[in-house]
Every structure is written in structure tokens, then in C-alpha cells.
């Protein structure tokens, strides 16, 4: 279904920012060329970090604050004993219910137009709360650099600056096999399900579509040949209940209680200044009258 099913001409409706876009990676057609990594680095002007030896065919051992897309390689064994490579284009999944957005204390991470999770680096203080909150290990704070982005978080932007102007994300535009589709999320899910059925008919009985319901819906979908765990993807990831309690329970309640408390102190002061005139207790005042 590669080139025949190209999504080259699709553009989001500029008048409908509520429309959810997505990328769907058909891993069955990924050749691990890493063109998407290069395009990502080039378009976002991210520093090239060479001399990293992950001990695999990967260019980088993992994502980092300046590496927003990486092709992960997983060597497995087929039933006939032959080795097989599984490849997964890894980056921020742009979750509908994102751990990083929930954990961010400065609102630098937010839910943006088209379902994209945006990062305002100006508002980021580099606290790193987002890192453990991401079940996909897709956001990192740069703790080594001292440049403009030093001590700031970095992650895939979904090329928001491109898609908002009717262009495709850089990784999509450069993919030589068109295994990365970009389009309306619902349409891509329908396409993905069809592709999974086709692969299963071809004998890939473990083929599945990942990202439809995870974290209430990812905007980075995958057609996988094997179960998610074979690609290092979490099975049924969910937002930490502790994090949810922290953000949506404790903080609003804390503010409200503090507000009520301050009001109580004002009321107390208004009443007490009439009773404790001159700073004297009623007993002292009575004694001084008597004297």
C-alpha cells in the first residue's frame, strides 16, 4: 500500500483548529534509513550529536533534548529461526491525555491546536517533571548544553510550524517509502485497521494498530507487525493517578483552602481591632480603667 496510498495531498482545514491530525507509521514498510531523523534535525536546527555508540544500528541510543526522532532497532527471531529486524520511528506521541502536560508546573507544555502537545521553551524552567511523567521516554531536559536551549526541555513539535502553514511534518515529507502517513486522525485509524487486516491476511498474524486508545488516543499511530512490547512500547500506558491527584486535586484545593484561610484572617482582624484596642486584652483594658 506504500506509494499507492500516499497522503501527499492531505492538508488540515486551516479554519478548524479542533481537527485532530496524526502520523501513522507503517512499520512493515520502514527500511530504517533514518532519513526522518536527519530531516527532523535539519528542520528544527537541532545539534548533531555524533560519537555516540549505542552498540546497535541506531544512530542514537535514545531520544534526548536535541534528538526528537530516532529509529529504534529490535532484533528478534522468526519461527524458522531466522533473525528479523523490527524498526520503530520513535518520538513524542502527542497523547490526548499527556503525562508531561499534567506534570508541567509552569504550563510550558500544553494541548495545542490539531491535538498536538506544544512546548513553549520560553516558559520552561527545566525542572524535568515531564521526564518521568512520559510513559514513552520521549521528552528530555538538556542538562549539558549552555546554549539558547540549555536546561530546557525538548521534544517533537509535530512540526507545528509546518503543518500550521499547510506543509507536512519534515519526517513525513522526507520518508522515501512513504511509510509515515500524515492526515486526519480518524481517517488514518480507518486506514490503519484496513492495513492490519491486509497484513494478517498475508500471514503476519500478530499485526496490530497501536495508539488508538493508549493515553486516550495518540497522535502518533503505528501499524506493528508484532505486539507493542516487541518494539519497546508500553502496553496499555496510562496517566499516573498520583500525578492526576497532584495536578487536578491538590493544587486547586490548596489554592481554595488558602483563599478561605486568608478571608478568615481578614475577618478576624476586623473584629479583633475593635476588641483589643491599643493592643490590650479586655482584662488589661479593664485594669487600666480601674487604675
Amino acid at each position, binding site marked *: 500500500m506504500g506509494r499507492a496510498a500516499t497522503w501527499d495531498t492531505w492538508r488540515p482545514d486551516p479554519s478548524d483548529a479542533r481537527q485532530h491530525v496524526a502520523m501513522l507509521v507503517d512499520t512493515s514498510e520502514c527500511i530504517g534509513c533514518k532519513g526522518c531523523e536527519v530531516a527532523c534535525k535539519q528542520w528544527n536546527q537541532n545539534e548533531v550529536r555524533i560519537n555516540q555508540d549505542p552498540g546497535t544500528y541506531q544512530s542514537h541510543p535514545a531520544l534526548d533534548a536535541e534528538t526528537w526522532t530516532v529509529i529504534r532497532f529490535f532484533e528478534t527471531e522468526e519461527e524458522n529461526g531466522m533473525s528479523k529486524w523490527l524498526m520503530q520511528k520513535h518520538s513524542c506521541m502527542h497523547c490526548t491525555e499527556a503525562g508531561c502536560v499534567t506534570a508541567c508546573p*509552569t504550563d510550558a507544555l500544553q494541548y495545542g491546536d490539531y491535538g498536538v502537545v506544544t512546548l513553549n521553551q520560553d516558559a520552561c*524552567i527545566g525542572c524535568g517533571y515531564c521526564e*518521568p511523567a512520559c510513559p514513552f521516554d520521549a521528552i528530555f531536559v538538556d542538562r549539558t548544553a549552555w546554549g539558547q536551549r540549555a536546561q530546557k526541555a525538548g521534544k517533537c513539535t509535530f512540526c507545528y510550524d509546518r503543518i500550521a502553514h499547510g506543509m507536512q511534518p519534515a519526517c513525513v515529507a522526507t520518508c522515501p517509502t512513504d511509510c509515515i502517513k500524515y492526515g486526519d486522525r480518524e481517517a488514518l485509524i480507518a486506514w490503519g485497521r484496513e492495513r492490519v487486516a491486509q497484513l494478517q491476511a498475508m500471514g503476519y498474524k500478530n499485526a496490530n494498530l497501536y495508539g488508538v486508545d493508549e493515553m486516550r488516543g495518540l497522535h502518533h499511530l503505528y501499524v506493528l507487525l508484532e505486539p507493542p512490547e516487541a518494539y519497546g512500547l508500553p502496553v496499555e500506558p496510562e496517566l499516573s493517578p498520583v500525578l492526576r491527584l497532584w495536578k487536578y486535586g491538590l493544587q486547586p484545593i490548596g489554592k481554595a483552602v488558602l483563599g478561605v484561610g486568608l478571608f478568615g*484572617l481578614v475577618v*478576624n482582624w476586623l473584629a479583633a481591632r475593635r*476588641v483589643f484596642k491599643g493592643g490590650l486584652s*479586655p482584662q488589661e483594658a479593664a485594669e487600666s480603667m480601674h487604675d
Partner: protein
Amino acid sequence: MARRGGSIKKFSRVQVLFHWLYSGSWIILALTGIAFLWRGDPTEPAAGLGPLLQGSVGQTLRLVHRVAAIGLMTSPLVWLLGDPKSVWPDLKELFSFGKNDLKYMLIAPLYYTTGRGQLPPQGKFNGGHKVNFYVVFTTYFTFIGSGLVMWFGRGAVSDQAFHTAQLIHSLSFWLGSGLFLLHLYLTAIHPFTRRSLSAMVDGWMELQYARLDHSEWVEREVRSGTAQIRDAERPAAAR
């Protein structure tokens, strides 16, 4: 500092220094932490305090927060090393919560608002001081424990442990800030109880106020001959 009816020594200079080092660090920590909670509309970064926290400002605040955290963590050393003789007696009294302290906690809110009721005799620390101390003592450890996890524990602890540290840190803050505001109000703003502030300025408290709010302690000190009292006109040596 001469006061009407004379003064009684309540705290040593070292205790006063420790109090202000701790509270100063606490205030800096609170302000540099809480600033981010009032950004206004979360979808509009330019609202609330947002414009003041852009670029490197937020990172600088984070750095100040961490420097103040070191101040908070180490400040008890000032008391422990500078005036070790007062540590055990004061801690012993602070950790003794009797019937009078409970009565005080029940009567004080009404008394300090309307002047009605009769406060029971209190020791060097009244019931309110003790409750405030329990919160400060507990949050000292919860702040440090959770703060160190968030500062150094990324990657070394599980994600759930990290989130729990976040929750404990915030819980400590909301609990501590409520008590802090009450403490600040009673010692600096309330028309009657602000007379106690001098004890944390130069260590001396107005004797007349001490007899009202800490009568048990004053009587005990006078009876045992350890009270340091000076009259309103001239300082007197310890009796």
C-alpha cells in the same frame, strides 16, 4: 528595648538567628515555588505572572529555590551547634501537648477574635506554637526528602516514586503555607498577639504579655530563679 512593666528573656540570640534563617529560607522557597501557580489562564502564557517568568527568569528562580533549600536544610545546625543547652528543654516542652494546650486550641480562636473566654495558663510555648512546630518539624523532613528526590532522583527512582515526591512536596507546601500565614498574622498583625514579636527580634518579651500568654512558664522561671527579667528603664542582670 525597654517595655512597659519590664521584659523577660524568652529566646537566646542563637535561637532568634536560627528562626530567621529558617523562616527566611522558607519564604524564599515559597515565593520561588508558588510564583508558577499564578500564571492566570494556562492556555494564555501572557496572563497572570506569565510575562514575568519567561526566558531565563524561571530558570533563575529555580536556582534561587535550590540555594534557599540548602539554607533551609542547614539552618537547624545553627541552633544545634550555637546553643545546644536550650535544644533539649525546648524540644521537650514542644513535644509535650497537655490538656491546657488542647483547651487553648479550643478557646484561642474565639478569644483572639472577640476577647471572650479565659485562656488556660501556658508554658513557654502555647498550644498554637506547638501545633505550628509540629507542622514545621514534619514538613522539614517531607520537604527535604521529596525535594532531594526531585532534585537528584530522576532516573534513580521509579516514576511513581518521583510523582509521589511531587505530591508530598506540594502537600507539605499547602500545609506549611497555611500555618505560615496564620503564624505571620498572629505575630505581626493581630493587635494583641503581635506584642509577642519582640521575643523573636531581640529575645525579650514584654513581661505583662508573658504573664497573660505564658503564665505557667513565667511562674516556673521566677520560682526556680532562672528568669531573666529587666525593668522598663534599665537592663538588669539575671537573677
